[in-house]
């Protein structure tokens, strides 16, 4: 099965997003002849990254699925938008970091999927410094 070409983009913005800002973007799935898209799931989420256990929470979720037996046609750009929450703000810590991203999962036939992520920054918390 060919892998579809997935494009996920956020509207241009100068500087980081702030709480309450509206995040806008679009995605499209270029389908090659033998690839069938069963469903797509779009999430806006934050997750931690670092040395310990990881945490994750989904702020926005949208699923598009074809009717039973149908395939989705997503060749035209599909726009999305949502308001960003007050917290948690993006943080570049030493032991733990908080990362925001838009994640698009495209479900193909035979249990295969394609994952694409677009990171973004919420807030402007200064990065942590390490003491020498």
């Amino acid at each position, binding site marked *: 099965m060919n892998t579809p070409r997935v494009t996920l983009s956020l509207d241009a913005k100068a500087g980081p997003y702030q709480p309450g800002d509206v995040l806008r973007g679009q995605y499209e799935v270029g389908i090659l002849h033998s690839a069938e898209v069963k469903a797509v799931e779009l999430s806006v989420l934050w997750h931690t990254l*670092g*040395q310990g*256990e990881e945490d994750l929470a989904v702020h926005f979720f949208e699923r598009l699925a074809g009717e039973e037996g149908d395939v989705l046609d997503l060749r035209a750009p599909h726009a999305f938008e949502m308001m960003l929450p007050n917290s948690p703000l993006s943080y570049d810590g*030493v032991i733990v*970091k908080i*990362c925001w991203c838009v994640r698009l999962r495209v479900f193909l036939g035979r249990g295969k999927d394609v994952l694409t992520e677009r990171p973004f920054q919420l807030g402007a918390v200064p*990065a942590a410094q*390490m003491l020498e």
Partner: protein
Amino acid sequence: MIHPIGHNPFATRSVRPGALDYIFPTDLRVEDVVERLRAHGWWGEIVGPHGSGKSTLLETLRPKLEAAGRHVVAMTLYQGQRRLPPQGRHQGEWPTPAQLVVDGYEQLAMPARWALQRRCRRARAGLLVSTHRPTGLPTLLHTAPDLDVLTAIVNQLTGGDFSVITPEDVARAYLVRGHDVRETLFDLYSLYERRRRHDR
């Protein structure tokens, strides 16, 4: 351009068992280990010191066991955990054919090991364990830490970019950590953070 939060190739999500594939010695493949386990009636143990790749190997074996028709019931035992978690005790809930996979088997008290073996025999289930010391099950593989393997792991994690963490850094941390691969990767995370912030 909005820069995403700093990436660190040694973060938990990249180095946890399952995220990394076990790197086999040149004369051995994952299929060979599955075959050895099958030859012993699906019972066997992987023996090696702390941080030598036992958990990673179990995770690498898991999809191969599933592909061989075994239904994996996996559990991880932590320091001082002398009893099995519920999924290891509730034999009636095991799928058929079950393949019990116990990471950290040496933590179990002897009566708990015997009880588990009895349950596995009764249910005709397989039993695959990792342990620091041999426990009497058929030994499938001895894992041993190796600097070349560690360097290959770092190469895989960094995409071959040794500009922040050099091979000398890897060798030094490996020595300091007494050849414990897991702890070495932990230290490399901190070193990466220090260099990244210093260079900014």
